[in-house]
């Protein structure tokens, strides 16, 4: 990064300091924009993208500490690396700068060699952070990425009211056996694309994909006003999307796909689990187990969507339900009241 040159902003009220810093940085291959006080610096940062800010502490209008405070409160700018440059005598202000998130401190007059080293280190750190963020963005849902962004990464969870959903493709193994591997993968990709769209369209989050199965959560990590209703609406949409997909010309002559969906609501524990090196956002709890069992049960009762009593109670306005009575589910001591969603269509 340093080799190709970064875009830097220098904020200093003293013209000689500004010019000198700009010169040193330009000689190191960076492009530099100047600001004569904190207010101008902040305006410039909000207008144009920068890789790093070199910030003086003592400035009129808005000083360096105020700039750091504003940056910290700004979602878009709070990760911008800041190196404080000052000849300030008061050590407590430097300490305050570091506390406010400044990456480093350089004493003025700035030694060019030290300047180069500190800037290189800061830019490298920023590059790694950007890379990490990009990875999180790709492998986690936007909601989880946002949750990570705002709360930071910490293993451990909290209790919340949420709705869990499990879904898989019926008879997928035999479909896979009849198809070429490329076809199977393409089928799965299309299936996931459709399911993701239906689920995230209702505010849900897909947090697990295994083979042809997926698990989604409604109401975590970000709260939803009506997680039960959202999950049922998403399930209906998923069924509809699969039906539309089955009607597509390229599916002619191929086995049509059917899915089964289980939904249950209640208290779950949500959080990051795993190790510091590899972790995943997940939900555990009774509702999650029940949803998984209900999904398995869809094959036995030949219904597309099964929900528990809690979900049905909160989502009664969404559609018609058929009561299937109380069922003993594997791994559950108490029987669970099961309802099937009327999808207006028989499932094989």
């Amino acid at each position, binding site marked *: 990064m340093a080799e190709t040159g970064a875009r830097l902003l220098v904020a200093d*009220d*003293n*013209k000689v*300091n500004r*010019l*000198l810093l700009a010169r040193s940085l330009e000689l190191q291959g960076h492009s530099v924009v100047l600001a004569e006080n904190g207010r101008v610096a902040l305006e410039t940062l909000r207008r144009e993208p920068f890789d790093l800010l070199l910030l003086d502490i*003592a400035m*009129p209008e808005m000083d360096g500490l105020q700039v750091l405070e504003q940056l910290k409160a700004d979602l878009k700018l709070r990760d911008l690396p800041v190196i404080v440059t000052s*000849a300030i005598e008061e050590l407590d202000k430097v300490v305050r700068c570091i506390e406010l998130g400044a990456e480093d401190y350089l004493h003025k*007059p700035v030694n060019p060699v030290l300047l180069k080293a500190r800037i290189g280190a800061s830019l490298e750190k920023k590059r790694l952070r950007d890379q990490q963020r990009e990875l999180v963005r790709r492998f986690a849902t936007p909601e989880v990425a946002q949750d990570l962004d705002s709360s930071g990464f910490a293993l451990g969870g909290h209790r919340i009211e949420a709705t869990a959903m499990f879904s898989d493709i019926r008879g997928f193994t035999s479909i896979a056996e009849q198809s070429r591997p490329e076809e199977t993968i393409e089928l799965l990709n299309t299936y996931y694309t459709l399911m993701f769209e239906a689920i995230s369209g209702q505010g849900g989050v897909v947090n697990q994909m295994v083979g042809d199965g997926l698990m989604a959560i409604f109401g975590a990590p970000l709260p939803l006003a009506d997680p039960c209703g959202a999950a049922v609406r998403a399930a209906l949409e998923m069924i509809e999307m699969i039906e539309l997909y089955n009607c597509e010309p390229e599916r002619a002559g191929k086995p049509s796909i059917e899915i089964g969906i289980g939904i249950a609501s209640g208290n779950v524990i949500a959080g990051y689990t795993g190790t510091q090196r590899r972790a995943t956002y997940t939900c555990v709890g009774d509702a999650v187990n029940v949803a998984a069992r209900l999904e398995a049960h869809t094959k036995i009762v030949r219904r597309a969507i099964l929900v528990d009593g809690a979900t049905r109670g909160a989502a009664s306005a969404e559609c018609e339900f058929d009561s299937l009575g109380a069922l003993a589910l594997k791994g559950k001591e108490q029987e669970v009241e099961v309802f099937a969603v009327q999808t207006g269509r028989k499932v094989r």
Partner: protein
Amino acid sequence: MNESPIDVATYRALQEATGKDFVSELVETFMQEAPGMLADLRDARAKSDADRFRRAAHSLKSNFNTFGAHTLGAMARELEIKGMTDPACNEAALDALEAAYAPAAAALKELGRG
């Protein structure tokens, strides 16, 4: 005034790091800015504006040290640290700073030519 008010080693190091022509231009800029900063010190003192006083002293200190005018840098630092706590002492210190500035500026100009 036998000794130069400018530390030549610091000045040459600056030239080496940033280029001779650039340093000459920088000295030019400083000559334009410094009288204003010195006047700022007096004005801030007259108006009892402690923040401005400290900022002006701070700026001068930093610039003096950049060019190797360490004696002046130390004088400005003194003003910055003491702020406006001792008006009588400040009056004398300001006079001394202004008196020391002229020969230092002349020496800087001379170095720029050399």
